[in-house]
């Protein structure tokens, strides 16, 4: 970005976001910034609010207070402070600016791999069928599935389905990509092919916010790691710092020790 004010401010700016499901506080005053081109990974024990935070960023989940801005625009609500939801049309347009990849892929089973990618391009971006098809083929090529354009999701392996899921999200050319435990539902031998795709997107400068349990990947691919515990941000820093065994943060030390004990 050439604009100096834009360059200094974060692309994603989460401030003091809180959310409760009934009496359970799932997010407690969470703040988090992601700059353009950054890859930020959220780690933490299950139930710490990682996925909920991610789902708030594209407003699949509403939040009770605080503000989430993407490129300076408030997500979900008309203005920070008010709880007045944006219109359905506005929300849809906002969501088109964020890509999301899901743990359970959520491909549309009635559409081919190419059809899954083309749907948003034609309906939301207003591209013609042939333009959308070209874009779909381009992105399928990027994820190594050019030969599977006309396959239905049911004909693809889990790893292939998830790569189509990634292609569907990035084909919309979102400002930021949200990855929600995208390898958790995969057989171990299929994890690598999906992470390789994410890595190559990161190298191309795609801004990403991801939740993952793949610590080695988080360490190698992230600009920064956010450690969440009990619905709050407990630690933020570069991977080396956060994943160091001798960290002074006790919650984080326990989490990492448990993680190492179960994975090595």
């Amino acid at each position, binding site marked *: 970005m050439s604009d100096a004010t834009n360059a200094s401010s974060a692309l994603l700016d989460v401030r003091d976001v809180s959310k409760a499901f009934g009496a359970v506080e799932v997010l407690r005053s969470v703040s988090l910034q992601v700059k353009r081109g950054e890859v930020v990974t959220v780690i933490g024990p299950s139930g710490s609010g990682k996925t909920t935070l991610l789902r708030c960023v*594209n407003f*699949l989940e509403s939040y009770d207070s605080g503000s989430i801005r993407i490129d300076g625009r408030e997500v979900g609500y008309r203005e920070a402070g008010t709880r007045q939801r944006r219109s*359905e*049309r506005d929300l*849809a*347009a*906002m*969501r*088109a*600016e*964020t*890509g*999301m990849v*899901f743990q*359970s892929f*959520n*491909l*549309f*089973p*009635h559409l081919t791999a190419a059809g899954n990618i083309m*749907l*948003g391009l034609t*309906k*939301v971006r207003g591209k013609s069928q042939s333009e959308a098809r070209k874009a779909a083929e381009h992105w399928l090529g990027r994820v190594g599935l050019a030969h599977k354009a006309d396959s*239905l999701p*049911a004909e693809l392996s889990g790893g292939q389905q998830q790569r189509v899921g990634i292609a*569907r*999200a990035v084909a*919309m050319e979102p400002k930021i990509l949200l990855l929600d435990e995208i390898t958790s539902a995969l057989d171990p031998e299929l994890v690598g092919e999906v992470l390789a795709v994410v890595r190559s997107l990161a190298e191309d400068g795609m801004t990403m916010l991801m939740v993952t349990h793949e610590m080695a990947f988080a360490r190698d691919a992230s600009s920064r790691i956010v450690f969440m515990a009990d619905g709050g941000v407990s630690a933020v820093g570069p991977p080396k710092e956060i994943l160091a065994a001798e960290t002074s943060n006790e919650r984080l030390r326990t989490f990492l020790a448990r993680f190492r004990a179960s994975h090595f």
Partner: protein
Amino acid sequence: MLSQILYALPFLAQGFAVTLWVSLLVVVLSLIVGVLLGVGLVYGPAPLRWVVRIFSDTIRGIPILVLMFFVYYGLPATGLHLPSFWAAVLALTLFKTAQVVEYVRGAVASIPKGQSEAAMAIGLTFSQRLTSVIFPQAFRRFLPPWINGVTDAVKGSALVSLLGITDLMQAINQVIGRTYEAMPLYILGALIYFAVNYALSLASRRLERRFAFIRE
């Protein structure tokens, strides 16, 4: 005997046309209203959901014959006088609509939440999500019970004869009244109803195969 039946055929054909016309009206009207109310039942605001729920539960709990007599003989007390044909169509449509509502609700509810979320995430609006993602998938689950319901509607249309409408059933009864050939004429009637419904279920099977894109 054969000559008497042959002589009656044009009359029976007229009755059959009425049967088809009643069935078509009931099936099309109940499909339109039922899909709208069914979507309202799944996605609508609470008051709309209650109204649809009460409508559906009430109508499905009443014998269709009671409903038909109520509309024809009961409603005039409120000042609404319907000709027997339209009273019959209205009653059968109400009944069928309540069923369609349930088929739609069941079919839409069977689509995993992740499908809506994935559709939201790429920026589709509510109506785009319905038409491009939810309905194409729900259609396959909606189809078998609905076709079943269509055959029920064709068979059920015979009830309109009780309001004096000359459908196939009534025509057969009248011919029997003249000829006393009950056995062959009821067999003929049964064959005609059967032929229509068998054709429908064949068409349904073909459609289902065409939409069998999800392996389960």
